[in-house]
């Protein structure tokens, strides 16, 4: 096992990794920017190195400084957390060239999954369903009709040079297909000087369901079941939960098994997440793989009782997985709310500044992952997440009740937070019924709950 690990990240996830290391008896090396100098979590590390200025590109993205810190501190491995350099294959490679273990997948797996087209073809070879469409541009009307019939209506017509919805049309049926096709082409030609369009199945009101997987260096791959992250605003997840509500056991198993096939095909190791969209009829389609630990990993930890960060470290150290797929059981329901320093009443405007009061909820079933405390100043340079509030209870109904009282207890002064908005979402019948899709917040919540 490693003697010393450098954590190439900041804030909540850096603290999360320090905690895991301490419990494993591993020394920690923190890095920090001038913007984070003096933050309390840095005191918990055995060593701490300033790697540059407050802006990310001057510090948390400065590969040379981070590697230098690892070398002078004698760190044997680097945990990248999420964001920053976590999915940077070059950094991944540099670490290994410097004989420092990168706690994550191989650069090769990272690259192949990082490229949408490679990932899509990998999925197809692994028999993982992808959103069906015309492979390549539409040559003529007949081909358009053929493809549309084969993938089924409604279909989405997209400009190959597209962007910002220009040259994009939805065709509900054959009657309107050719007109829509013509409009899209003309619009695309006008907008991008390129009339090329292709067809893709239009997935209505999809839910976001993702599968946590871990794979060791001995060929063992297991999934830790799924998470539903459909409550999102502009692709920013606000509430995550496991298990996914309102999803048949059959689909649940099928998605998880598809995820395992996907990472096997990519020769993937360490922790990762395979993301899918699920339509109201429970058809599911592969979207992408996140080749790192995710913000919402705690909900999976709560229902499975498995410490994912510790597993990441053990895998990187060459240990085989300590359990088989059959031994991974989930218990109860876990829900996570990301507490962001944003003001829902002002368009979720980030609200940096000094946190003058910080009273966190506690009691049975409540977990807090946060680096914040009364007197902490939220730097304006990074994302606005103050922390994560996670609950775990025997039933989903109890978990919702627990989260609601926990959000009520949370008392933050000095900066605005998203907590009250999340409480409002948790009280809706849509959340209770598990019918929320990825556009629901913009379509419904922002109109009715604010």
């Amino acid at each position, binding site marked *: 096992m490693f003697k010393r690990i450098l954590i190439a990240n900041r804030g909540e996830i850096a603290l999360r990794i320090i905690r895991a290391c301490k419990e494993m008896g591993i020394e920690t090396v923190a890095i920090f920017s001038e913007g984070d100098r003096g933050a309390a979590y840095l005191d918990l590390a055995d060593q701490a190195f300033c790697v540059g200025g407050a802006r990310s590109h001057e510090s948390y993205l400065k590969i040379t400084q981070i590697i230098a810190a690892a070398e002078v501190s004698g760190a044997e491995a680097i945990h990248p957390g999420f964001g920053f350099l976590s999915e940077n294959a070059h950094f991944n490679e540099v670490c290994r060239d410097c004989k420092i273990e990168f706690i994550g997948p191989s650069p090769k797996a990272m690259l192949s999954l990082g490229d949408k087209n490679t990932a899509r073809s990998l999925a197809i070879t692994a028999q993982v369903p992808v959103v069906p469409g015309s492979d390549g541009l539409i040559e003529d009307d007949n081909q358009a009709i053929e493809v549309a019939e084969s993938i089924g209506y409604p279909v989405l017509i997209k400009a190959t040079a597209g962007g910002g919805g220009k040259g994009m049309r939805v065709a509900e049926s054959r009657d309107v297909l050719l007109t829509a096709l013509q409009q899209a082409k003309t619009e695309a030609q006008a907008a991008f000087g390129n009339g090329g369009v292709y067809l893709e199945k239009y997935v209505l009101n999809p839910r976001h369901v993702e599968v946590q997987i871990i794979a060791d260096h001995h060929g063992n791959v297991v999934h830790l079941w799924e998470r539903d992250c459909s409550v999102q605003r502009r692709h920013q997840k606000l509430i995550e939960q496991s298990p996914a509500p309102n999803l048949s056991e059959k689909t649940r198993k099928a998605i998880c098994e598809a995820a395992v096939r996907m990472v096997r095909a990519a020769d993937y190791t360490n922790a990762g997440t395979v993301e899918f969209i699920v339509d109201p009829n429970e058809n599911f389609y592969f979207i992408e793989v996140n080749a790192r630990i995710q913000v919402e990993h705690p909900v999976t930890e709560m229902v499975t009782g498995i410490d994912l960060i510790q597993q990441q470290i053990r895998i990187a150290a060459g240990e085989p997985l300590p359990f088989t797929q059959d031994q991974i059981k989930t218990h109860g329901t876990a829900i996570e709310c990301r507490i962001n320093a944003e003001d829902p*009443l002002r368009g979720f405007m980030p609200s940096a500044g000094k946190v003058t009061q910080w009273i966190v909820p506690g009691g049975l079933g409540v977990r807090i992952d946060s680096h914040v405390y009364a007197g902490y100043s939220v730097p304006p340079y990074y994302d606005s997440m103050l922390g994560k509030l996670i609950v775990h209870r025997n039933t989903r109904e109890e978990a919702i009740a627990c989260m609601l009282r926990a959000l*009520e207890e949370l008392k933050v002064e000095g900066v*605005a937070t998203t907590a*009250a908005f999340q*409480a409002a979402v948790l*009280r809706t019948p849509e959340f209770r019924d598990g019918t929320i899709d990825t556009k629901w917040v913009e379509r419904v919540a922002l109109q009715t709950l604010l």
Partner: protein
Amino acid sequence: MSEVGPDSEVFEVNRIKSLIKLMRENDLNEIDLKHGERRIRLRKGDLPTQMIVGAPSYAPQHYAPAPAPAAAPAATAQAPAVDDDANAQFIKSPMVGTFYSKPNPEAKPYVQVGDQVTAETIVCQIEAMKMFSEIPAGVSGTIKAVLVKNQEAVDVNKPLFKIV
């Protein structure tokens, strides 16, 4: 602690005014009235006096802006009040119970604003566990204000009357 009516009432500026008056008279730093989803909170001191109201399905407790009408009167009206507050006294409740301003529904109140009282004057009754206790003023002077409504629930040290 005390009841708040339907939302319309919650927003009623006069209600806020009188609450602020109460704070001033009793030198309170905070009034926090909550009932189910509805809530009024008034704060004094370093924190700006603010009003926080929970809507049925959504309680923006952390950042509801302080509406000017509520805060303003407190600030402006304060100055004149100070003088007579200086030597004001309060008759406080010695017990938890229900406040009764009159001996019986038909009778007129024990005391009203303007009445002179001595330490022995009975100013109200408080009912607890079916027992009625007559409360003497304890001090002498003129009733300046009755601070609780008839049959309102009171707790220990709750100011009942203001006396000068």
